[in-house]
């Protein structure tokens, strides 16, 4: 080992190898087991690229590719417009209820499967509440939920929190001395934001934007909800899951999704290349917060409330659905009841505890892996370190159903020692599937966080005699804490509603998570209410968790801040 790696890098090298092994075992092998047919001539069994030639020859697939690209790009634009004011106001000004706004901002990520879709249709569908009112009063309707623009609308209000969370973390990581220097030199207002603050927060913004782009490009749920078939992810899904047909095109599309996602990731890395985003002093912690003048405050609140009303409306619809009796072709449900919650609490509490355990473990593993990968990639010069990042991020583009089938195929013949049960049907496999699927979220946040820390801080610590390990524990990780927390929150929130891989892997009802419970309820007309109630519970749990972590972070930030500077500002 010492021959291969200089001794200071031995720790990271071992960690890197372990992570690579983990990704190989639980991502590359199972997925490879499934998608190798993309490279196989279906009639002779020989290796070939003819399937890819077919893909590009097929006009429907070319159209789907273009549509997916268009929708992903536009969603980044709209999501940026939604998230920038929220991130800026809450990190830059003394703003009542910042933790609350930051928490509400994450809620859109937790859109429970199926019920979320029903709630959206009941509110924004062509005969949803909004359109019924519009038609009644003004005699026209707006097709919110139709075609590609409908997909963009839903995707943007669903995934903008990726940008919000990462941008907020980055903004509060900027050292205030940079801003002070700029102000001393006469810069202020928009110019200060445009030239100093935003560029320094660039790693966070790019991390979020790349996530939104890749996630929307690969997203399946929303196009299916709107019955838009002419996009890549639904094409892959429809072809993989149809009964009895064994068309390799589904897997070809999966390979193309992975490749294109990696390409976009690479582009986003290039965009940040050659610039240094790190700031050295970490004395004050975060941007200067100033008080708002009265009319400014009114304006900010108006913008924030407007955005929150828009992005939280699906959850408001979900809440109505969970308390409503019958809701059909009407602005509101016919009557209200708590019967659905009674049903849920008498039959489905197991789902809730399972979800908390699974999603909690998965998010924990995700931030550990994310921090380790970020450190290996940005703080060492190990050969091939970037591939850890690419490899982990590739998980974003692998359809959940492909991962699920791959796990069954790979791990069903491996028995877990002591328990003597196939690994594929043990509940831990669900946790691993969630870890793999949500790792990219945690990873992007951790990478953004480490990019903002100056190496000089670590060098200083080492000069003062700290060991490498001690430096990591006492300097790097505490400074990354904002990003790590952001990563934990996004991973946890999205793992809590994961369905496509888990539905393949659940082998016992007692092991099933909440999303599976919702799926089960939503198979029958009478199950809509209890399904929605279960969805509301999922949102509540994740929301409360997020709020608590924000409060903790704010408190620790306050403890580090010298009070006198906060209070006085021009």
């Amino acid at each position, binding site marked *: 080992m010492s021959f291969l790696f200089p001794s200071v890098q031995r720790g990271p090298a071992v960690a890197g190898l372990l992570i690579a092994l983990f990704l190989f075992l639980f991502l590359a092998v199972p997925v490879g087991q499934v998608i190798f047919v993309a490279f196989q001539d279906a009639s002779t069994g020989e290796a070939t690229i003819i399937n890819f030639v077919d893909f590009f020859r097929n006009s429907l697939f070319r159209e789907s590719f273009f549509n997916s690209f268009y929708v992903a790009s536009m969603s980044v634009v709209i999501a940026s417009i939604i998230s920038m004011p929220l991130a800026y106001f809450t990190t830059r000004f003394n703003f009542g209820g910042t933790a609350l706004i930051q928490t509400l901002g994450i809620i859109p990520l937790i859109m429970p499967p199926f019920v979320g879709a029903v709630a959206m249709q009941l509110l924004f569908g062509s005969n949803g509440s909004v359109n019924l009112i519009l038609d009644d009063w003004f005699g026209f309707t707006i097709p919110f939920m139709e075609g590609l623009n409908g997909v963009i609308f839903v995707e943007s209000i669903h995934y903008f929190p990726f940008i919000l969370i990462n941008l907020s973390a980055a903004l509060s990581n900027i050292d205030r001395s940079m801003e002070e220097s700029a102000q001393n030199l006469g810069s202020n207002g928009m110019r200060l934001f445009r030239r100093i603050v935003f560029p320094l927060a660039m790693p966070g913004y790019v991390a979020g934007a790349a996530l939104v782009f890749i996630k929307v490009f690969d997203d399946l749920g929303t196009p299916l909800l709107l019955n838009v078939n002419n996009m890549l992810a639904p094409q892959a899904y429809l072809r993989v899951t149809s009964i*009895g047909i064994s068309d390799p095109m589904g897997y070809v599309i999966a390979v193309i999704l992975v490749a294109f996602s990696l390409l976009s990731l690479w582009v986003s890395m290039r965009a940040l290349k050659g610039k240094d985003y790190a700031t050295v002093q970490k004395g004050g912690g975060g941007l200067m917060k100033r008080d708002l003048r009265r009319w400014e405050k009114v304006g900010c609140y108006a913008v924030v409330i407007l955005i929150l009303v828009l992005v939280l409306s699906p959850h408001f619809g979900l809440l109505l659905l969970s308390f409503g009796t019958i809701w059909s072709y009407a602005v509101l449900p016919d009557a209200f009841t708590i019967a659905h919650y009674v049903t849920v609490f008498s039959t489905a509490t197991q789902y809730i505890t399972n979800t908390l355990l699974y999603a909690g473990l998965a998010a924990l593993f995700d931030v550990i892996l994310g921090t380790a990968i970020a450190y290996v990639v940005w703080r060492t010069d190990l050969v091939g370190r970037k591939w850890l990042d690419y490899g982990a991020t590739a998980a974003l583009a692998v359809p959940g159903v492909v991962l699920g089938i791959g796990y069954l195929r790979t791990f069903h013949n491996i028995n877990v020692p002591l328990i003597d049960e196939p690994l594929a049907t043990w509940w831990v496999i669900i946790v691993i599937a969630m870890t793999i699927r949500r790792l990219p979220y945690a990873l992007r946040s951790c990478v953004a966080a480490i990019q903002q820390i100056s190496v000089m801080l670590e060098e200083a610590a080492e000069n003062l005699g700290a060991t490498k390990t001690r430096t990591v524990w006492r300097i790097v990780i505490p400074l990354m804490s904002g990003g790590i927390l952001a990563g934990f929150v996004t991973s946890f929130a999205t793992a809590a509603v994961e369905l496509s891989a888990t539905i393949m892997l659940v082998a016992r009802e007692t092991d099933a998570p909440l999303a599976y419970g919702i*799926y089960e309820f939503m*198979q029958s*007309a009478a199950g809509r209410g209890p399904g929605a109630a279960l969805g509301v519970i999922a949102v509540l749990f994740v929301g409360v968790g997020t709020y608590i972590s924000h409060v903790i972070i704010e408190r620790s930030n306050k403890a580090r801040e010298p009070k006198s500077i906060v209070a006085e500002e021009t």
Partner: protein
Amino acid sequence: MKKFMTLGAAAVIAMSVASGTAFAADGTLTVVTSFPKDLTSVFKSAFEKKNPGLTIEVLNKKTSAGIKYLQETSANNTSDLFWASAPDAFEVLKGDSLLAKYTPMAKGIPDKVGAFPINDPDGYYMGFAASGYGIMWNTRYTAAKKLPVPKNWADLKDPVYHGHVGMSAPSRSGTTHLTVETVIQGMGWDAGWAEWKEIAGNFKTVTERSFGVPDGVNSGQFGYGIVIDFFGLSSVGSGFPVDFVYPEVTTLVPANIGIVKGAPNQAAAAEFIEFLLSPEGQELLLNPKIRRLPVNPNTYANAPAGFPNPFKDKSIGAAVKFDLDLSKNRYNVVNSLFDVMITYRMKDLTAATKAIQDADAAIKGKSNPAAAKLIAEARALVAKMPVSEATAGAKEFNAIFKKKRKKATDVIEGRQAEVEQEWDTQVKANYAKAKELAEQAKNML
């Protein structure tokens, strides 16, 4: 809470002991099913009450996921029963030799319901309930938009329904497949497909899962849905403002159950099938949240008034003599054709249909042979099939879509993507041309 403790190593061992006993032969019966909880829980509790000591473990997976699950876990199988609606799902499993033969002992069950045999002739799966397709609609929706109530499939072709109808795709739902096939068999290949395309020209959407249709009608997202009876009946039963009707041409299809090959608990699996087919089990199907047609004719004596009885009312499901072999031979081609011509080209199809309907409305009461000819041409273009009935039923052609090479030496000519691309090009051009002709006709009037 047990799970939290297993985080400790000691608890892992404790868990293994506990689960070891849970998997003993007499204890658990694992059922993979696509049926909703409303149905499974009723049978689960009744069966467990009758057989103390037996526990049913219900694994709810959608049909396609259930098949994949059984396929992937077959080497180390842990499931006892597969319990689902679509006979074709069982055909797939049978083809992969994943089912075990069983001959039920229950008495009083006839050979056929409607025109469809109740049990698999080879004995790999048995029907326990029957269901037929029909039309459901949202009464608030139809009242608000002042739309009439359809009685037959053909009524849905009427221009008043443009943009108001929803359906699932046959490649997504086995029962939808049978409805599509029934109409094609009843009217013939070209006329049957023309009928479907004319109905589909009025579609608002083709949903990804079969439950998406009743869901959409229940919410009022679209007014009419082509659905299987229990979706309609149970929606009515749950209080939604909807209604359901069987059209004259419908097929009754059995919902089935089969023992998985190498089931860990064979005896209990057989016991469950017998329970399902017993008078007691059959009666449970009448539960308002389930509402499926029992296969034992005697059970109907206890049914509520107005409950359809296919054994008495010969008009349900008997109009078409359903040819099972024909359906099986071209199964994948029909699915793929529907997707290429309808699901993936919905926008083009509905646009062409709208143009034809507009031209039709304009020509009404006028005599203009040139325009009439253009409209007829446009209609023929929409109806035009990219493949003939003979080709669609040919074995070699179907092999392209199956692509399961039994031996390494097997060679199959052609690729699905290639064929579909060819169809897509033709279909898209035809729809565009039809739209153009119809618009041209309208401008002449």
